[in-house]
């Protein structure tokens, strides 16, 4: 049995608690619906900068938080934060006896941090810009570039680390605007998992979060490009190019999500058995680094197939991928492939069940979408996947009207896009 308690404070803060009997550890975190999706050109990258400042222990304007973090660090509590396209999260994990202080620290992060010194902002800008430079100098950006190509430079197409130029000129006022408009109780979810007592924990939460003023959250209307597009940067350095063929897919809460993940695994799981790895790496030796990925968001998602290969091999690689996608559409997948993909996904989900932080993040993501899922239920969904349900989804997904293309490197793009054809 998997029990989850879902409570709302009077100020609108949502609380999700999941007790794990006999556990001596806990993890807790707060998810605020503020990420690059909600940014514009005028504040691109500031959600991420704000996350860095919010959790920064050098913030002398918040001595209460500094003291709590010092005490928690002494106890061995691990803390971190993250910014995605749709949310900013702050989280702690440690022994259950540290729960109260962790909740106090989380409350202090979102309630007390309203002002940062210029010195702190300037210093953290340097760190965030360095992180952005690393990202924009890496082939890892191709996943986000695929979403950018599919949806445009807006909504979930926006890059999380944002614009380096905009970060450079960020001010306390710019950051304060985001805090005022997005760091509100009704826009946040507090999640706690592990060896906890529901009633005691709720009392602690109430003591620390009920003072968080109930304010109106900024309005957001989702807008994306009407048609999938292209990202292409013709950088000529180095030996390799990176390419990604992407497809618009439904949201995280869509009934076909698990099936689409299975499709991604069958075609391009970086294990040696997937079709693209077999054809591109094993048979032809065209690339070492390739794979498929899915990124699911609240209202839409991205499925991508990425390959890093020599500039001169790009067209051959593209031809192989398109051949395999068309073949999958025409002939479907086999029972054996479905079975293997299901096992991979089931094992990974069960491993997450034994990982408190993974459970916390899973609940944080689901609850910020207004959903209450459990990892056990995820396993059930995976086990129930049938080949008969997968083949029609492949036909629906692999469609030129859903397809976009992202690439960085040196090759003849005009020639390459001629090969990107779905039958």
């Amino acid at each position, binding site marked *: 049995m998997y029990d989850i308690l879902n409570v709302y404070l009077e100020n609108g803060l949502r609380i999700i608690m999941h007790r794990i009997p006999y556990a001596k550890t806990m993890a807790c975190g707060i998810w605020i619906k503020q990420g690059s999706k909600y940014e514009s050109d005028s504040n691109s990258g500031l959600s991420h900068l704000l996350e860095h400042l919010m959790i920064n222990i050098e913030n002398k304007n918040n001595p209460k938080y500094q003291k709590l973090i010092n005490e928690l660090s002494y106890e061995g509590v691990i803390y971190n934060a993250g910014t995605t396209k749709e949310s900013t999260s702050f989280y702690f994990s440690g022994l259950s006896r540290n729960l109260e202080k962790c909740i106090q620290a989380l409350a202090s992060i979102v309630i007390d941090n309203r002002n940062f010194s210029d010195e702190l902002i300037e210093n953290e800008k340097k760190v965030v810009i360095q992180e952005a430079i*690393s990202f924009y100098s890496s082939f890892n950006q191709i996943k986000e570039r695929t979403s950018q190509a599919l949806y445009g430079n807006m909504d979930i197409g926006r890059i999380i680390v944002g614009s380096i130029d905009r970060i450079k000129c960020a001010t306390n006022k710019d950051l304060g605007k985001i805090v005022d408009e997005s760091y509100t109780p009704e826009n946040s979810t507090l999640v706690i998992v592990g060896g906890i007592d529901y009633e005691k924990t709720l009392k602690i939460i109430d003591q620390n979060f009920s003072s968080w003023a109930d304010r109106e959250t900024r309005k957001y209307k989702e807008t994306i*490009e009407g*048609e999938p597009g292209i990202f292409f940067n013709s*950088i000529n*350095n180095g030996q390799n190019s990176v390419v990604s063929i992407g497809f618009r897919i439904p949201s995280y809460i869509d009934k076909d999500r698990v099936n689409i993940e299975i499709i991604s695994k069958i075609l391009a799981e970086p294990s040696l058995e997937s079709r693209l790895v077999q054809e591109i790496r094993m048979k032809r030796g065209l690339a070492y680094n390739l794979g498929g990925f899915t990124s699911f968001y609240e209202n839409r998602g991205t499925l991508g197939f990425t390959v890093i290969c020599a500039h001169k091999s790009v067209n051959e690689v593209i031809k192989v991928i398109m051949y395999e996608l068309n073949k999958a559409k025409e002939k479907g997948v086999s029972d054996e492939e479905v079975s293997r993909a299901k096992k991979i996904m089931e094992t990974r989900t069960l491993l997450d069940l034994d990982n408190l932080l993974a459970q916390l993040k899973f609940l944080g993501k689901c609850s910020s979408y207004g959903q209450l899922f459990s990892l056990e239920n995820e396993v059930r969904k995976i086990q129930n996947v049938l080949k008969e349900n997968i083949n029609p989804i492949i036909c629906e997904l692999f469609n030129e009207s859903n397809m976009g293309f992202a690439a960085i490197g040196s090759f003849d793009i005009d020639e390459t896009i001629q090969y990107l054809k779905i039958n």
Partner: protein
Amino acid sequence: MADIPCIYDMSLVNEKDNLKEDIIKGKALEILLTLLSGSKTIKEIAKELNIPSFSIQLYVKRLMDNNFIRITEEKVIDGKIEKTYELASTDIQILNYLRKNCKNSDGTENIELSAQHFASLTREIIKNVGKCNDKPHKIKAYFIKSDEETMQRFKEDLDKLFDKYQALEDENSIETYGLITAFAPYKLD
């Protein structure tokens, strides 16, 4: 270690300058010709040319950057932005033309027409419109509803006009101008 130099630019398409020069390669010319019959969305162009929308967007970006086309309307329908494009200027009018001289094996001069030659020659000429904007140029497509007899007279007038300027040709001139025509019945569905 960095895989590539940092990409500071936030735009979706960023090509090297030498790639930008040949702006009407690939499908760009076809897009220009498609827009001759009126403004269109990416989806409509994609459907008409039977190529994926994402490819169209690459060429549309190039044509926009070089001021060949512009956005005439932008609206949001069900949370999706739909942009309508049109030719940027009425001064840029597309005249369909092809005259290809080639020598046969017996040395006689002949005219060889083919869609490929038409496309490549037209492409070269349109490229130069952007490069030499101050020189005489005209790009336009004419569609006239008329009877055969009138059109026959039109053709004869055209021939006379061409002959007149052909006779004025100065073989020592540094500059060469191109004029390509394609004149035939056309049906607009």
